[in-house]
């Protein structure tokens, strides 16, 4: 019975994906996550199934970590599915979207229950590639964003693929259990960092994220920023044998990268004008802190277990809140009861920045305990940063227009998602239900207060940030990279560029090209200097 449920977790959404091509309803899109949710709660831990004749022989099982991921991912998929089924506007209300939505869900669930690397890789690939269809929209920018996303995802897949080859040829087995013993070569480790780092938007690999989140339908953004993004973290947890001494250097590296990500994300988030873009960059920042924590776990094998446990709670909390925020944003743009939704969003924001008695604070306390205050600076930094971003976000939300005719048909959203969101709200607040969330810590309060003050200071500059240089728009530096055209002999007869559809902006999008003229305005320079200084400053605490 348990085995059956376990199999149904990835199998059901796949079947539904097929079905939804012909007949789509709220049932087809929400049945799978419901079953996943039920099985996540009901299946006894460490249930295992092995299907030797499937693929190259698959092993699935559900351990504690998997259960956690499955629980929260399924929850988000469920609600998002509800939203999608209620949506009547074009890109979402098509069989293609529903099918790809469910395929991505399949991939996500599959990689959660995977006990062998190939299943994981399969899930990861399915998820990543079908997400392309969730991002793409008729508009010029959206298409380009989707292309960029696809490019990065493919690179990630290939990095992962070769990492797999290295590891498997080393261990001779595709099971994760055999992994713990072996020594992961530096090359393999680098590939893993690259492969999952793209999903986790490590600084330098993050360009796709703000581009796609700020243009994709908000429902897609919700599942992207929540379940899918966290899959990268799960990947690290699964593939990288924590607690082994020989990865300390890599731990350090991740620590640095993560911290950079935190700062970069924060800075850019504060420069965004669209609420979704703010959320996107805050995701970059949050993922930065998580990567840093994972790096810390690697750097100190001694208490890797504890840190990772705490990290999981933290991640789950962020997963839930961030997705709920996106969904809320969606509601906010579509409902008449904007005030109520705004309040909801505010509550979520507070939970995210770890107000006492919230899941956020619980996670933070756990982390502080696990890291034994070695990262206190970084954590406090993130607390302040989060505060800034959330305030900025709320401010931006206020200025968000209701859905205009050109984007959706401005229909009042159905009651089902509406109810679901309000149900989700308290869960998001309390998640991940850690007992410690009762505890009350003054430190975070202080930090939050500091953050608020700082925000008030910054607001004065906001006027200067009206016209932003191109490298501060969503997808910052990528706009500069994209300028580097591949002038190669290989061109179409109808002379289009070499990779016309994959990475570079399409030729006809003249307006796009014009708008992204590089203009070094004073705030631009100013912004650059500040970033550089802060990043430099960051190295001091780490190497003390």
């Amino acid at each position: 019975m348990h085995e059956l449920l376990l199999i149904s977790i990835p199998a059901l959404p796949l079947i539904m994906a097929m079905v939804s091509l012909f007949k789509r309803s709220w049932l087809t899109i929400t049945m799978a996550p419901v079953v996943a949710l039920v099985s996540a709660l009901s299946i006894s831990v460490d249930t295992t199934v092995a299907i030797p004749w499937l693929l190259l022989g698959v092993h699935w099982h559900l351990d504690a970590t998997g259960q956690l991921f499955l629980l929260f991912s399924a929850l988000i998929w469920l609600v998002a599915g509800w939203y999608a089924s209620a949506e009547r506007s074009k890109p979402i209300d098509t069989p293609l979207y529903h099918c790809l939505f469910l395929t991505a869900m399949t991939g996500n669930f599959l990689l959660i229950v995977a006990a062998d690397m190939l299943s994981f890789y399969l899930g990861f690939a399915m998820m990543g590639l079908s997400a392309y269809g969730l991002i793409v929209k008729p508009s010029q920018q959206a298409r380009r964003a989707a292309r960029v996303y696809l490019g990065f995802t493919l690179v990630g897949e290939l990095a992962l693929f070769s990492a797999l080859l290295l590891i498997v040829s080393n261990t001779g087995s595709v099971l994760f259990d055999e992994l713990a013993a072996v020594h992961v070569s530096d090359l393999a480790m680098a590939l893993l960092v690259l492969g999952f780092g793209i999903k986790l938007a490590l600084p330098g690999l993050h360009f796709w994220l703000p581009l796609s989140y700020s243009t994709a339908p908000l429902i897609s953004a919700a599942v992207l920023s929540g379940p899918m993004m966290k899959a990268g973290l799960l990947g690290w947890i699964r593939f990288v044998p924590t607690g082994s001494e020989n990865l300390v250097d890599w731990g350090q590296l991740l620590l640095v990268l993560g911290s950079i990500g935190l700062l970069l994300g924060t800075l850019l988030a504060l420069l965004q004008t669209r609420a979704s873009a703010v959320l996107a960059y805050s995701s970059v920042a949050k993922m930065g802190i998580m990567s840093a924590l994972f790096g810390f776990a690697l750097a100190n094998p001694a208490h890797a277990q504890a840190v990772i446990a705490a990290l999981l709670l933290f991640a789950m909390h962020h997963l839930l809140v961030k997705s709920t925020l996106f969904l809320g944003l969606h509601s906010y743009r579509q409902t008449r009861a904007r005030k109520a939704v705004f309040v909801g969003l505010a509550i979520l924001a507070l939970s995210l920045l770890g107000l006492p008695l919230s899941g956020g604070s619980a996670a933070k306390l756990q982390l502080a305990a696990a890291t034994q205050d070695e990262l206190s600076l970084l954590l406090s930094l993130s607390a302040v940063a989060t505060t800034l971003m959330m305030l900025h976000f709320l401010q931006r939300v206020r200025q968000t227009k209701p859905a205009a005719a050109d984007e959706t048909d401005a229909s009042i959203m159905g009651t089902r998602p509406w109810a679901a969101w309000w149900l989700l709200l308290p869960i998001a607040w309390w998640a991940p239900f850690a007992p410690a969330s009762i505890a009350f810590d003054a430190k975070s309060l202080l930090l939050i207060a500091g953050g608020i003050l700082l925000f008030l200071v910054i607001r004065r500059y906001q006027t200067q940030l009206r016209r932003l240089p191109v490298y501060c728009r969503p997808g910052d530096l990528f706009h500069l990279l994209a300028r580097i055209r591949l002038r190669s002999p290989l061109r179409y007869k109808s002379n289009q560029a070499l990779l016309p559809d994959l990475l570079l902006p399409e030729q006809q999008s003249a307006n796009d090209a014009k708008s992204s003229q590089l203009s070094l305005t004073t705030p631009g320079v100013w912004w650059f200097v500040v970033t550089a200084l802060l990043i430099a400053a960051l190295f001091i605490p780490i190497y003390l």
Partner: protein
Amino acid sequence: MELFSLLPLFILLSSLLPGLAIFMLKEESHGLRTGLNLFGAIAKLLLVGLLIWGVFHEKLLELRWSLGPGLELVLHADALSVLFVTLSTVLWLVTTIYAIGYLENTPHRSRFFGFFSLCVTATVGLALAGNLFTFVIFYELLTLATYPLVAHKGSPMAVRGARIYLAYTLAGGVLLLIGAVWLQTIAGPIDFVQGGILSGMQELDPWQLRWIFLLLIIGLGVKAALVPLHGWLPQAMVAPAPVSALLHAVAVVKAGAFGIVRVVYDVYGVEFAGSLGLLAFLGAAASITIVYGSVKALSQDNLKRRLAYSTVSQVSYIALGTAIVGPLATIGGVVHLVHQGVMKITLFFAAGNYAETLGVHRVSEMDGIGRRMPGTTLAFTIAALGMIGIPPVAGFVSKWYIGLGAMEAGAGWWVIPVLLTSSLLNAAYFLPIVYRAWFKPMTQAWPEEQPIQGRWEMPAALLWPPLVTASLALLIGVFAAAPYSPLEWATLIASREY
């Protein structure tokens, strides 16, 4: 049992006789021709089923017929040949159905189907050849049988393409012939022996063997479209879609690749070839071809040309897998023989459908074609994903095994980069098509659209073949580890070779 050992002969006849009969038919007798075709194809399928059973239980299936001193015509069925025979038989059945639909009321159908059957006969003979002499014979016969198919349309373009095709393949054939004769004069009759017949004869002069290997590989490389011998392949695109499908997936290109496998494993023996330092050469050639083909494919706007270059690249995976010593790589290379065939034939079916139904020949005309022809485009998408190597489509399995084999043989440092590059490039030239087909709105009217009759987007005979092969490509990927799957069979082959 005597009758049973005649099985290979019957398999040949099952397509040869219908073919000859079809030549005699009048143009009008459509029903009879179709009947003959299908009868032959199905009969062959049944016989092949029997053959699989026989080989699996290691029955001796061999026929010998002497043509002169040292020249023996040998038909012999071993695991490798069964793999190829099965592939060509199954795909022949599908392609025949497709061709019947495709050539609906066009002239010279008797001629076409006659040569079509001959072509498959030659391919099967190639697969069942028991020694180098027989192999060469069928190799040349294949060239002859395909020439009229390429030239079928009779347009100046077609005739020119066919001429180029012929020039390349026959020149290659002559080199192959010389190499084979040379080998036979120094080593006696060259039967295909698992583990390699030459590896037993250490007394031979290694330098002669190296030169002979070069001759053989060049001769086979022309058909296998190894760079720089690939020039004919894009030219042969003028052929009708079913022919291109057969050429690229089953008959010609695959024959070359199959020959390379034969020469390396059953003539030289892979360890022996490696010890002569020949595999490095082969591997280099294959890698260059893989990358070059993909790069060229990027810049093709004509759909069939793009597919042609992708064939150039994909087929060399087989050579690459062959060039790496070690069972895993062998499995990868051999199984790709099947996987590439199934996926590529799907792509060409789809391309043919686009051209037939909408007159779409260029990638730039394909915006939004997915809405007009969902079935075909679905098949195309699956196959394209497989080509890129995205699980669970079959292509992933081959790449996985080749990669593992490379690691096992310590060749990972150059093989894996090649694999990655080509995957990335494949994505770069396939995904834009998929994207245009599904996500881009239809911009201009189709060049020449046929009105839809019936409930499908096009005649069923054209729609089902790609769907069938596409689902086949998916299934052999998803059930790769299931018994009697290509992968399992390839494993059997590898276990018998080492």
